[in-house]
């Protein structure tokens, strides 16, 4: 799901980077000290999650954990996602360095929507957890497909998107098990 450099127009990539820095400022300011270790640990999980490759339908998928990041961190997920993507880009060459902004916006949108869903307390918790995990993958995949389509890389995108539906279901179940785990150990990490 990481967009490489040279696919999206350079000007759009630069604008996305500027927008990302703006979002980081607004979502990350006044972060209480107690939140920071939580952000670090979630960031570390997101960073290594990309190394777990699951071969599927001729391609490979890896967990993104953006839904879980949204559940745990709320609006503070964005600075974490941006940092993680930046490190993945220059350490693992996952996605381009210039496209970090646009990738963060794609994946941050998934995490943000996951958080919005998680806040709907009137819904049953297991449903919220699964749905949050699901949108954490499907929203970034949808945005990426649209961006590819607009850049003239339309072919095969429908196929890629259909693979992500499978990944999103897996991710939904994964976030359910994470939520269950935190409830079991009686942790106040998730509210």
């Amino acid at each position: 799901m990481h967009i490489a450099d040279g696919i999206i127009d350079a000007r759009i990539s630069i604008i996305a980077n500027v927008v990302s820095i703006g979002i980081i400022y607004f979502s990350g300011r006044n972060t209480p000290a107690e939140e920071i270790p939580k952000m670090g640990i979630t960031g570390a999980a997101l960073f290594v999650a990309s190394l777990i490759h699951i071969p599927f339908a001729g391609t490979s998928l890896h967990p993104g954990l953006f839904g879980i990041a949204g559940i745990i961190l709320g609006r503070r997920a964005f600075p974490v996602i941006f940092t993680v993507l930046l490190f993945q880009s220059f350490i693992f060459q996952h996605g381009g360095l210039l496209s970090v902004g646009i990738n963060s916006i794609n994946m941050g949108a998934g995490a943000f929507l996951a958080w919005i869903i998680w806040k709907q307390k009137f819904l049953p918790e297991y449903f919220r957890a699964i749905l949050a995990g699901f949108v954490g993958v499907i929203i970034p995949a949808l945005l990426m497909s649209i961006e590819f389509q607009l850049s003239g890389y339309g072919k095969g995108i429908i196929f890629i998107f259909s693979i992500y539906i499978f990944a999103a279901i897996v991710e939904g179940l994964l976030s359910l098990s994470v939520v269950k785990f935190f409830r079991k150990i009686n942790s106040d990490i998730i509210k």
Partner: protein
Amino acid sequence: MNKSLITSTLLVLLFSTLAMAHSIRVDVNIQSPTVTIYAGFSKIKPIANAKVEVFAPETETPYQLGQTDINGNFAFLPNAYGEWRIKIDDEMGHVRNTKINIPKEFFTTDDSEHETDIKSISKVIKIETEEEIETSHHHSHNAITEIPIIYKAIFGLALIFGITGILYGYKANKKLKQ
């Protein structure tokens, strides 16, 4: 906070050493009538399409010019005994100059003696070589892709935890002062 700083600094230092230690390994196999060379970063990481220049003893004009194949191998047929020079350049900032000594027996044509000669000469020899590492943009890029993924992951995690530690220390310090 200090601990995280020290950890990340140590890791950065460790990785810079790993990048420096990354050099061309050359194995030479002399077996009459050919000399074969293997060039690689390790035994399992050959350098494909590296530029090879072969110089006959006491000449400055190349005897043969070529490239290593996909498995990092290169071969040539010497026509004289003495000290041959081979220059291998991966065109990414690594150059290695190797000197090999071709003995007189290499050219023995007598069939009866031939077999024993091959036995005595044919062996993989490690040769004293000098290496020049040119610093270039390509070099640093190449060096980072050579690091095993597990080290990269540890490096990234150390960076993340280091940054978390610094931010936490900064915020906590600010809170204490208030």
